[in-house]
């Protein structure tokens, strides 16, 4: 564990101690709901969304704590009563559920990184900022390996001007870009979402409405949290 992590841990413990139990419970439920929503958004959005570092990190810390509880208790499992066994079963079940969602979230991101690697790295710093440190490493290494492979296999035998992997001239770009025109399903979650206006159309967003709409038109409302992807 690094110093930063230890400090965060400490901070978390202090905060946990200070706030009442009720608040802690609320916090947990909120975090979990947010994790679920993050997963859904990442799965449905056509582009790579910013990495939710804090959320994932705090969930991972909680996961580790629960694993510790299992380890401590399972040592003396034979002597303990069924009640503990049930509790361990519940804890284990929850760990599996949360592991699943985090795994699915990260894998979904990796798939997008693979797909949009060129777009992300040639674009600008804002795109790269959406990646976690690990993901940046992964992306650069993966691209390097791919380029080496391609060039050793066949690219080196081609004329120089045909060797590019990121050629944008000639009308067709070789860089895969996210499809911002993709239709996504959204749900309005607040009462004061601004209507979507484009061309001659206006779409009123009332609370709890579900719409399909092109991603590019709803990005602002998504950022403001007035609507969520479903």
């Amino acid at each position, binding site marked *: 564990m690094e110093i930063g992590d230890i400090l965060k841990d400490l901070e978390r413990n202090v905060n946990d101690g200070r706030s009442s139990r009720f608040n802690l419970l609320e916090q947990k439920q909120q975090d979990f709901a947010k994790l679920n929503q993050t997963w859904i958004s990442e799965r449905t959005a056509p582009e790579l969304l910013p990495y939710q570092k804090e959320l994932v990190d705090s969930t991972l810390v909680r996961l580790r704590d629960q694993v510790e509880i299992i380890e401590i208790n399972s040592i003396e499992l034979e002597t303990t009563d069924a009640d503990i066994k049930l509790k361990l079963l519940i804890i284990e079940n929850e760990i599996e*559920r*949360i592991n*699943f969602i985090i795994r699915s979230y990260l894998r979904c991101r990796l798939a997008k990184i693979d797909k949009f690697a060129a777009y992300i790295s040639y674009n600008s710093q804002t795109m790269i900022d959406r990646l976690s440190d690990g993901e940046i490493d992964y992306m650069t290494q993966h691209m390097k390996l791919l380029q080496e492979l391609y060039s050793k296999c066949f690219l080196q035998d081609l004329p120089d001007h045909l060797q590019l992997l990121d050629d944008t001239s000639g009308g067709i770009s070789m860089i895969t870009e996210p499809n911002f*025109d993709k239709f996504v399903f959204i749900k309005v979650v607040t009462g004061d979402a601004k209507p979507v206006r484009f061309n001659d159309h206006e779409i009123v967003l009332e609370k709890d409405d579900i719409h399909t*709409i092109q991603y590019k038109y709803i990005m602002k409302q998504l950022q403001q949290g007035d609507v969520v992807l479903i």
Partner: protein
Amino acid sequence: MTFPKELQETFTSAEIVYLAENELIEVISNVSMNDKLSLISTELPKFRVMSTYKIPIWLAIILRKQNKITVPPPEWLNENYLANKYQEEVTNQTAFTQLPNNWLEVSKIFLKHFVQDLIDNEDVLLKLIQDLKEIRLVKLRKGLNNLNEINLGFNDLSLMEINEFRPFISRVMGNLAKFQKSLENEEGVENYDDAEDPGDDNAYDDDDDDDDLDNRNTSTGGRKDSTMAEANDDIDDEDMEMEDIVNEFEL
């Protein structure tokens, strides 16, 4: 592959059920448990015999298996309510009746894990749910005539129902948008040649006798107009092409 292609388009029904399992549900404890259990997403409170608690469904499933709790069905999961809703669904051809969020998912979970706690006969309930689901799907499929390149409302549908149609709808609407774009581009060029106002996007609408237009206009106005089932009224016989596509789309 890091992530299979079928997962990139939509969710699997297991994943939708997973999401529904996170919803809270009211349970009655049969036993008392002396201390709380702190979890990652929530905590399990102290249990007193015969008290009501709200806990996530996945937790209720585990506890129900151990006979620690009873799970009374939600107030909408009974013969009377569902039969009424079915009638409503039949009489009201233009909109979906309001059902609780996730009704399909939750009732599925109930019939699988909490069957013993149901008050009504499970077979009757299963049949009603199936009927309700089917009539809503038929409506949804008819409503697909109304697909356009701008926007559609899907109010009062559960995530499970939406999810089944997600890849189809987003693909078809995406293609329609592409057509529209190229139409507009063409029109823009023509206008430019005629030295008319190139900015007028509506120019082509005047001489456009495609019956698609009516649908488009009704579905852009606002909330009410954009409801999908509305299309039932103006299903056009000429619109055979879309009908064919819809029919091909096997569920």
